């Protein structure tokens, strides 16, 4: 198995996963890590509600379609499909400003409200356009573009739209442009899909399905799985230590041994489950994994950055056979 390239060697990394697995936090960690490594980074949000700024700022201000710098070397924006459509019509189709009136017409609004797929297509088109951007010297404007992909029931529908659109539309500039976008998605040199999961049973099964579809249907490169909220082995060590107690000591401030055993026992079982499902993820997806540590305080403007940013760039590993033992307790509720 060839060693995966560094995430920093790509042009476009699309972070994906089901809702609740920490997709946005992972995208932010990668963007921050790349920025710290001296890359000029563009972090792209696609969800209707902005979340990225809240990861970096205590009182987040809106990013908007044009976006703004969140830190030196890190520009972030949220693509607004309607604004992107207006740009597309003006720039790509070279249509005159008269189109503004059409774009604002009630009739088109009603069509757009109901029409499927155009948002995804236009958002991807905008990402393609951003990837193409160069400065006066012809260098790319952004070294790395990190996309926080939409959390939908079907995680990959977003990336599959250009292919579907070409089949549905057949001809015309839109179909041709969809082809360009598809080519970017299919280019393993430039583009990588970064699936995020939790070390739990169902998220892992869903990730397996996602990776299979990514390979078979969408044709986007994927070379590792991010395991988010991976517990440390602290509780396991503590449980093993408590097992060595000869006689219960007299303690002044700590809880009694029975309570401490209950606390660390819960944590140890959780950690064992997590290690089991981390290994499952690697085996089912046939991919190595990268861990993001579980931070009890969460991951926001208050901290947690340094830990997460260095963890995301770690070389992917294949979980060892010592993680094979399935935990005995703690049903995934």
């Amino acid at each position, binding site marked *: 198995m060839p060693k995966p390239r560094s995430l920093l060697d790509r042009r476009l990394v699309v972070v994906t996963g089901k809702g*609740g697995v920490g997709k946005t936090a992972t995208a932010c960690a990668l963007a921050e890590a790349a920025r710290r490594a001296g890359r000029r980074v563009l972090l792209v949000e696609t969800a209707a*509600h902005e979340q990225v700024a809240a990861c970096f700022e205590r009182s987040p201000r809106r990013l908007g379609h044009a976006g703004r710098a969140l830190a030196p070397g890190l520009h972030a924006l949220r693509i607004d499909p309607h604004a992107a459509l207006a740009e597309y019509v003006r720039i790509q189709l070279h249509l005159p400003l008269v189109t503004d009136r*059409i774009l604002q017409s009630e009739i088109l609004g009603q069509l757009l409200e109901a029409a499927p797929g155009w948002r995804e297509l236009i958002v991807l088109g905008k990402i393609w356009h951003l990837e193409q951007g160069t400065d006066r010297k012809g260098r790319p404007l952004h070294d790395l573009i990190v996309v926080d992909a939409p959390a939908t029931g079907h995680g990959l529908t977003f990336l599959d739209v250009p292919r579907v659109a070409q089949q549905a539309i057949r001809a015309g500039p839109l179909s041709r442009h969809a082809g360009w976008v598809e080519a970017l998605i299919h280019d393993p040199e430039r583009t990588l899909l970064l699936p995020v999961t939790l070390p739990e049973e169902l998220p892992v099964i869903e990730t397996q399905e996602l990776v299979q579809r990514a390979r078979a249907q969408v044709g986007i490169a994927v070379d590792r799985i991010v395991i988010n909220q991976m517990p440390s082995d602290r*509780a396991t060590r*503590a449980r*093993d230590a408590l097992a060595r107690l000869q006689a219960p000591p007299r303690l002044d401030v700590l809880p009694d041994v029975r309570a401490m055993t209950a606390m660390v*026992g819960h944590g140890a079982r959780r950690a064992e489950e997590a290690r089991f499902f981390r290994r499952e993820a690697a085996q089912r997806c046939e991919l190595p994994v990268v861990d993001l540590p579980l931070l009890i*305080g969460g991951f926001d403007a208050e901290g947690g950055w340094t830990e997460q940013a260095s963890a995301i760039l770690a070389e992917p590993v294949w979980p060892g056979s*010592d993680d094979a033992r399935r935990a005995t307790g703690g049903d995934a509720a």
Partner: protein
Amino acid sequence: MSGSAAAGGTDLARTLARARLIVCVGTGGVGKTTIAAALGLAAARLGRRSLVLTIDPARRLANAFGRDEVGSEPVPVELGASPDAGHPTAPARLEIMMLSTRRAFDQLVFRLTQDEATRERILGNRIYHHLAEALAGSSEYAAMAEVQALVESARYDLIVVDTPPAEHALDFLRAPGRLQAFLDSRFFHGLVRPAMTASRFSLRLFAGPFHRVLGLLERIAGVGFLEDLTELLRALDGLAGDLASRARRIEEVLFGADTRFVLVCRALAGSERTTGEFMAGIGDLGAPFGAVVVNRLQPWPLAEDPAELLARCRGEALARDVERLAASLGPPEDASGTTRAATDVANAPSDAAESVVDAVLEHARACALEQRRVRVLEEAAATRGVDCIRITERSEPLDRLEGLEAIARQLTTTA
């Protein structure tokens, strides 16, 4: 909360005894399906014929009941005797099903079309073929239509709906209204009506704003696309009336007096914000709000608050305890014993004692944070006049059904 303590059960317990429809909403990863399953189980234990219905394509619901798969037809769950002596002895009836949204709209078209030709025209349409799943929230609309039909079938006393884990999970509830708005729209009528009089699509038929919009579409997507689109809308026109009246009925059931929404969340970093947004969303929809369920809280085995413990465990007093703990530790287990997964066994007693204290205090910090977040959630629930119910993660391993029974008890009895 809400005077429930006096009655000895939660408001949710009364909802389970009365409501016809419970809709579980919440973001992904909060254990919504587990809560939906436990609610269905609790209602079944009250003697109500219950159905738990999931729209989630993942196998969470099947999993919750220890099955491999759930089909698109309801199947009964083997429940056995109630573990709780207080429940009626009549056999509990609980069924589960998964709503397949994949071809749900196809089925709807099939049901609503009278003649073969229309059906063929719609199902064979190129645009429909590729985009039916996304068509104006078609799958969500079809799912809601199915729920409404099941509620009105009187086959069940209570239906618990587990909604898809989406960032904007409430969106699908707006699908019937959106579809209705589209069918009533000028676009639909403007494009469909003239096209019906023409044997072949022609831009010349349209005047003014229509001409401009269609001109733009033709520039972007080509005339073939417009032909396909018009053809599809023409075929759908025959269904428009049925779909629109159906959409109204769905909304009546979904937001009716016999329905309650249950918001499932966790107490993680940021949960207060996302949960607040959900509560506002439920309010905006005018949906009847039933309860907030805070799921998967970590167990805290002490009577005192974790914050109190943390305040106490510091400085020299803590250092003395660590020494005493270290002094009572024996040698580490021999390596030939049980394999200790991915553990660096800290051999020195002082290191081992430190690791115990680290883990205990980390657990206390995590629980203190959770409790603080739960208090915020409780206040938010109280301002909306609903219960906030805490579900604690079990420490002991449990059989799946046993685990559901335990959650069902927590949902219906006050702590």
